[in-house]
Each structure stands twice: as C-alpha cells, then as structure tokens.
C-alpha cells in the first residue's frame, strides 16, 4: 500500500512533507483538502482523520501522523538509508536537530500566520506576528552566518538535513507575509543553497532557480 498525504497546495507545512518526499524520491498518493475557501479541514469528514483539524496528515500503513516535524522524522528514519537527513550520532546532534525542528514550528506560528492573514484574510494580530517572524528570521540568519564562517552551508553541517526542510518553507515564504529577505544576507544564500539540492521541488510563492536550466 502506498503512502497517502492529505495536502493543501498553499500550506508551508504540507510543502515540508512534499519537499522531503521529493528529495527522498518517495512516491505518495496526494489527497487535496479544500482548506480555502471550503474550510474542509474543519468538517466532520476530515476531523475523523485528524481531530486537531490541521494539515498535513501522512498515512503510511497503520500509521497516521499529523505534525510536519514528526512526519519529517518518520520519513528520514524510514526511507533514508544513508542517515544523512537525520543526524543523531550523539546527544548534541540529536538535541540540535530537535531545536531546529521546533524552530520550524516557530516560523509557521509567526510568519505562517502573518502569511495566511495577508494572503487569505485569516484574522490574527498581524503586527505581532510579523514582528515575531522578523525576530525568528534574524536568529536564523545569525546562525547561518556563523555556519558560513565555518564553511558549512546548511543548518547542521555542510549537507542538508530535515532541520533545513523544517525551516525552509516559511523562511522562504516570508515575502508573502510582507517580510522581505533583504535584511538577511546569510539566509538569502541558504535559500539558494536549499533550492540547489538535487530533487528540489518548488511551491507557489517559492520560485525555482531558473539558472539551473543552463547548467
């Protein structure tokens, strides 16, 4: 039986999963959920699948997972034999990985909220969401700057991990929420590096690198 993803194309959290599946070359059956305008994620049919009414939901055999970080951990464990996507050799690397997965959720809670407000008119305290989003981007940019000094291009080393995949979508989508990337130079370089990873796929609002076509 193939995996099944309950998906909404404009969701940054769903994109984390679509991107990871693509990078791992895993096939998955997609079920589109009409988040907007239909609010299908709050209808009884979907609440039976996920009582929290959130997207994405990944079904793999008996397993049903409804948190994008948990899904990334699962996919990296289950479908990446190299182990590169999920470094956990020691206490420090396990903890840092968990830190950046949580940081990805912080980006969704701030930039993601501001984006839904600006794009689909979903109410929130927009000034607070944007300010918290900028603060998070500044931290991310500072860390990526330090990584750069060490000669490492990604959050946890010189190769991408699920930490990068957890943080990439909402960081990249910040302009959708009225937050430009101009103030974050290390972040901008990282956004390009992630898009260069073989197997990368885009989502609406994140354009692919067109210069790749000529190389």
């Amino acid at each position, binding site marked *: 039986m193939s995996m099944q993803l309950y998906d909404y*194309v*404009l969701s940054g959290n769903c994109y984390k999963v679509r991107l990871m599946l693509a990078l791992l070359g895993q096939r998955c059956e997609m079920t*589109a959920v009409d988040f907007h*305008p239909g609010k*299908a994620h709050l209808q009884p049919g979907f609440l039976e699948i996920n009582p929290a009414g959130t997207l994405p939901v990944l079904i793999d055999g008996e397993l049903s997972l409804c948190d994008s970080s948990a899904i990334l951990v699962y996919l990296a464990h289950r479908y990446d034999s190299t182990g590169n996507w999920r470094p956990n050799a020691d206490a420090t690397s396990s903890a840092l990985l968990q830190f950046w997965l949580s940081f990805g959720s912080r980006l969704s809670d701030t930039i993601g909220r501001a984006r839904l407000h600006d794009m*689909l008119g979903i109410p929130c305290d927009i000034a607070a969401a944007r300010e918290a989003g900028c603060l998070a981007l500044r931290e991310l940019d500072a860390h990526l700057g330090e990584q750069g000094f060490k000669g490492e291009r990604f959050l946890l080393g010189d190769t991408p991990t699920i930490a990068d995949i957890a943080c990439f979508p909402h960081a990249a989508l910040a302009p959708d929420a009225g937050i430009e990337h101009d103030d974050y130079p290390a972040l901008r370089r990282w956004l390009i590096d992630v898009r260069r990873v073989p197997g990368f796929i885009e989502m*609406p*609002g994140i*354009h692919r690198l067109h210069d790749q076509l000529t190389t």
Partner: protein
Amino acid sequence: MDARNDWYPVAIASFLRPGEDQHLTLMNTRLHLTRATSGEIAARDTAGRPRPVTVAHGHVWSSTGEPAHPLFEIPEGLELGRKLVDCGAVQVSASPLRVVENFLDIAHFPFVHTDILGAEPHTEVAPYEVEIRDTVDEVWATGVKYYQPQAAKSARESLVSEYTYRVPAPCAAILYKTCPPRPDMMDVIGLFVRPVDEELSVAYPWMALYDDSTPVEEMIQFQQTIFIQDRSILENQIPRKLPLDPRMESPTMADKTSIAYRRWLKRKAYLYGAETHGV
C-alpha cells in the same frame, strides 16, 4: 467613468450563509453583508445605508456608488455540463488594474508558471489580434496560441492552447481556453477583482469547466497555485498603480492586450488604481 459606479465582487455567494455576516472593504468603504433565511442578500455601509446587490458568476457583487449598467454577463457559464468552481479569495498588495493586467499577459508563463502554463525554450508569443469593441465597450484578444506543459488539471499531456481574452469591466477579466478533455469546447476562467483601495486588491478566481473526472479540490488548488505564483510577482511591481502613460513602461509586441487595456482605461477615464502621472 467614476469607478465607484461599477459592480465589484464582495463575496463568494455560496459562502455567505444566514447568520454568518461578512464585513469587508470596497474602495475604502466598509460594507456589511447579510443573507436572510429567505435567501435574500443585503449590503449596507457603516451608516446603515443599503448598497446595491446582485448575484452572478458565483459571487455577490456590490458598489459604493450607483451602477449605471447591469453587471456583465457570461453566457457560457450557464451552459449545461460545466462545473462551476469557486476558487477562493486571495489578497494582493497591488492595484486592481495590475492584477487584471497580469491575468491578460501570456509572456510570463514559462518563467512564473514553469512546467504548468509554459516552459522554456517555448517563450515566443505568436502574433494575435486585439480590439476594443465599441459596441459592447469591452477589450477582446483573440487567436492567442501558446505551448503549455499542463494547460489545466484535466490535461494529460502538453498541448498548444488557444486563448481568447475578454475584459468586460475594468476590474474583471475572462479567458476562454482550449478544454483538454473536450478540444471542441472552451473552458471559461474568470478573475474578478475587488479594490480594497487603490493599491490593495482581493482577487476571486472562478471557473466554468468541462471536467468530470478531476476532484473539485484539485481544480481549486490548481487555480490557486497559478494565482499565488502570480501574487509574488504582482507585489513586486513598481509603481504599485498601473501606469497609463505609455512612456512609463516599455511594451513589446507580446503586450498588445495590455496596451489596449491601458488605452481603454484611459479613454474611459477609469483612473482608480491607475498611475496618472503624465496622462
């Protein structure tokens, strides 16, 4: 024309339900929408004055002025067998006229809608016809042909789509394009735009398609994908308002529809959301 005396989309009709009032802004004016249990829809401004209301093409339309004409018709939308799809409401920090103009542009397809509505190296826009039809006071572009990797959710392979564009009102555009499962028919896709103010818009994409196999959720997300790809481009266009002075932005042959649209707006003196410097 005074832009206030036109009809604008204010809600998706099927989502305005009794007891679920909607509040929104149209041209800097707050409106309050209600639907009675009898089904009747009413719009009022903050002073409680009733505003005109009409329901058509899946949407509720209203006005902050006094519309001199009935809302434009889309006869194809009434044809039997078409699936009518409400694609949602998307806010864009751009002039409503920029949003309409972008919808009329073909040349950006390979770069913004890569591998969907276009792909490199198929970037050439072949010559097509554009006219301002005085009898109906509309802009039409016909005979537009373009190579498309995935013209619609229903498309199984790449094809050369034929497009006809129609601009029935300054803040609305309709396109008729080859229907992949029924090449003898044209799909109808509308883009209706509500100006929140001169530099902020809410776009309501709407479709009337022949497609019996694609789940409606997938049709909606296909259209939202296209529109959100456009949104990031639209929000970066400077100036935010649409320049009507032809010296301000340099058009090419591929921009014939846009040139006619801008000329038509200028002739009508429809200036809401327009950059009028030099006009």
